[in-house]
């Protein structure tokens, strides 16, 4: 059946099948290898599951329907289910600038920030290698004090110039009891060497900062694993986990150590979205405009598209030319069209102001900017509505119209009471899809107005033309300080709204009844 459908049978079909399967396996194994190399074990697990599923679908005989669905299911899982699941997960985290990395990494960075050089900023010339017992050993030379030290991870002891050999520039090239690491050995051991500490006896230690330089450092902040606390060993100040992704001072919880980590916050992002006035007010404003924008976009494009479809339904002169001409806006990449429109609306040099002799700052006034957005979206969207409208009109049998005429209905009555309801029945899934598309129509907002205008002086946070998706983007990536957890929560709200509206409308229109 499967091979019959694709028109191939016999040995050639089998060879082709296994060749394609082999290529897919090869690609997945390459991905698996890369994922394991990068220690991305979740991705590796997903790749293994995909490999098993794909091979099971195509090698076994008992899973014929899977042969049709498996590839689609894999892509659906990767590109729809996974991002949605990840967004849901992130909406329950305190995930923003300052709280981005894992807890373990945050502790490492805090400890790294707690490494302090001494007041003199002492540095040593470093000759690093391995001793006869294969342990790291080094010669440290302090040029200010002319002090030479033999150092291991157990401690240091003074040595004399006789124990080393220098070149003509004073650079140490040999040392007794140490085989110097080659450049390649050094780079290969970089992550080990970076953590080397040669104790200097007073609590400080020498730590390599380059292939031939070390710095004298002290660890001012230490981590107590048993108590899960950080302690400033100089001041005695204790820092505890505040449960929100930061270590804070026990005495003054407003004092945080940077960086923090991504911490689970439950429904906090959703709560702040609905109960924090600073977030709720702009969110509601943006939400209202998003609904209005989506409805107006679908309504205007549908009205203009259908009007043109009806006008060009009957044979008229140059009909082909008009039809070709009308779909031109659809043929041009939308981002180009939007940028051209943006230029046309320019106050000083734009064609619109020049042609009409105006001096209108289109993108400075909230209502004019909204008008411009709707107008440009109408330009971009009406050819689609025209095309589907033309198709739908042709799908309605002409007999219905003739029967209505015989029953005495006028053309207008026949259209309003018979054709339009039929058209809406046929087109409702596409109108819903169009609504959902415009609800998330990021491109037109971002490229045309950037979500603006926004007046910071009047305390506005969101722009007048910002829709939820552009607002979520601004929240996530708009400035140096980002809030990805909150942005994920906004995305979830959008997902629920669009999903619910689509489901409700599809149920009402009964278009899924026959599936």
């Amino acid at each position, binding site marked *: 059946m499967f091979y019959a459908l694709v028109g191939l049978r016999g040995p050639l079909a089998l060879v082709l099948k296994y060749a394609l399967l082999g290529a897919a*396996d090869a690609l997945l194994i390459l991905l698996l290898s890369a994922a394991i190399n990068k220690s991305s074990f979740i991705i590796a697990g997903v790749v293994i599951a995909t490999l098993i599923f794909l091979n099971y679908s195509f090698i076994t005989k008992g899973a014929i329907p899977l042969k049709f669905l498996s590839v689609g299911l894999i892509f659906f899982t990767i590109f729809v289910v996974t991002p949605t699941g990840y967004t849901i997960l992130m909406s329950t985290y305190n995930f923003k600038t300052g709280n981005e990395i894992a807890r373990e990494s945050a502790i490492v960075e805090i400890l790294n920030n707690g490494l302090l050089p001494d007041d*003199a900023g002492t540095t040593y010339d470093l000759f690093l290698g391995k001793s006869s017992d294969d342990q790291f050993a080094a010669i440290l030379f302090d040029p200010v004090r002319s002090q030479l030290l033999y150092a291991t991870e157990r401690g240091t002891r003074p040595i004399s110039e006789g124990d080393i050999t220098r070149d003509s520039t004073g650079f140490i090239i040999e040392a007794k009891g140490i085989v110097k690491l080659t450049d390649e050995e050094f780079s290969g051991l*970089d992550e080990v060497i970076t953590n080397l500490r040669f104790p200097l006896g007073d609590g400080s230690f020498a730590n390599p900062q380059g292939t031939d330089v070390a710095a004298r450092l002290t660890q001012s902040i230490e981590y107590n694993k048993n108590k899960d606390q950080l302690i400033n060993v100089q001041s005695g100040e204790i820092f505890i986990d505040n449960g929100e992704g930061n270590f804070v001072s026990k005495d003054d919880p407003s004092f945080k150590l940077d960086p923090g980590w991504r911490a689970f916050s439950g429904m906090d992002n959703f709560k702040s979205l609905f109960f924090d006035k600073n977030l709720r007010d702009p969110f509601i404003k943006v939400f209202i405009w998003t609904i209005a924008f989506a409805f107006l976009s679908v309504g205007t494009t549908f009205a203009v598209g259908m009007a043109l479809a009806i006008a060009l339904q009957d044979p008229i002169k140059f009909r082909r030319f008009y039809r070709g001409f009308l779909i031109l806006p659809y043929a041009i990449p939308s981002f180009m069209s939007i940028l051209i429109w943006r230029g046309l609306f320019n106050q000083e040099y734009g064609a619109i102001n020049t042609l009409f002799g105006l001096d209108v700052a289109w993108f400075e006034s909230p209502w004019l900017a909204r008008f411009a957005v709707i107008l440009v979206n109408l330009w971009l969207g009406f050819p689609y509505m025209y095309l589907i409208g033309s198709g739908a009109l042709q799908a309605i049998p002409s007999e219905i119209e003739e029967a209505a005429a015989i029953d005495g209905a006028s053309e207008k009555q026949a259209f309003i009471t018979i054709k339009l309801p039929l058209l809406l029945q046929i087109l409702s899934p596409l109108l819903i899809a169009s609504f959902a598309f415009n609800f998330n129509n990021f491109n037109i907002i971002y490229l045309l107005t950037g979500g603006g205008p926004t007046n910071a*002086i009047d305390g506005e946070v969101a722009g007048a033309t910002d829709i939820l998706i552009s607002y979520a983007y601004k929240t996530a990536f708009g400035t140096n300080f980002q809030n990805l957890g909150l942005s994920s929560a906004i995305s979830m709200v959008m997902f629920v709204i669009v999903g619910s509206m689509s489901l409700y409308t599809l149920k009402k229109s009964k278009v899924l009844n026959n599936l």
Partner: protein
Amino acid sequence: MTKKRYGVVGAIAAAALAVSVMAVPTAFAAKKSIVIWADDTRGPALESIVKQMEAEVPGYKVSVRSFASYDALGTAWDKATAATGPDIILRDGSLALSGSKSGKIQSLIISSTTRAAFSKAAIGALTVKARVYGIPTDADVTGMVYNTALMAKAPKTMQEIYDYYTANKTSKGLTNGICSFNGTWGAQPVLTALGGGTWGYKGTTANLSKVVFNSPAFKKNAKKYLLGADGKTNGFFSYSECDSAFKAGKVPVALVGAWNMDGIQKAGIKYAWGSLPGVTEGTFGNQWVGYSAAYLTSYATKHGVRIGANQLLNRFFASEEGQLAFNEAQKTPRPLAHLSASEKTKDLDAAGLGQASRNAVPQLNGPLGDKTGGADWYAVSDDALKDIFAGKDLNTTLDKAAAILAKNFANAAKS
């Protein structure tokens, strides 16, 4: 051959292909590489001097990834992970603050010699909570250029530019008297020249408790120089559309950055460098000076190249030779952060901007980026000027803006 045999042969072939692909990563296993991310101007310059950089880190390979634009680099950095992120990134000074907070960049241990190679302002701009987070590479500053075909000599007062503009507006088709290529950030000299600015100073130290955005002097001078009889902009000063207007020879004086010079030269504009004069002779407007830097990322540790990357920063980016080589390789010469390298720069534009940077005041990213009052300085200053130019009451607008800034600065001063 039977169908079953074809199946077996096919399965073996598939497995063989799969195994051969597995061998590919082993065969092409990469040497330990220090990865640098940079924008569209710095990146290609670094690519051309990779060998020089590699000479400073024997045993390591250096690879540079150039991004299509400065914004594209920022977007990629925001999305970077341990698997994809760089070991060194070249970015503006504000990354010291956000990167230290996020833990994506690491503080550096720099020697006293390295510290002494830069001005205190340059090191200070990259210092957060007493830790240095980057090696300053170049100064981000704007300077004043004047179109010598329009104005033969550098103007001595603001009134001189104003008079020139009003006298020649129609005859020479001037769109503005002064314009800023870089928005309100680049317009800072105009605001300070008119008695305004952002915060006050106690000596040379910023006084964050004193907001001067709405100072009486600025209110008075803004009404005189920036607004017409109808209360809207008189066109004398613009901080938008400057690029095309100045290149078309329609503006006598412009505030420009190093990155704008290539376009101006290509447009064939003859220009000279100067300092934007104030209302009275001998006074001048002050621009911010920020410092771009090379930062060590926390990914370098995860990639096992921390020491190599740190050495590259100290030996190449922090050295006179390194900064001069980097500067020479760039098509857009910027004023160098390294003091002795800066003195050896021969490029006239870099020298002009270098002069501007010496007259400039430090750009404090903390208070400028603070949003406690509802919006940061960038949005507030932009909207305030926009509102004033559109005809909203000047005093009310400036006072509202100053109130927001006061809250921002008070919060920034605390932290």
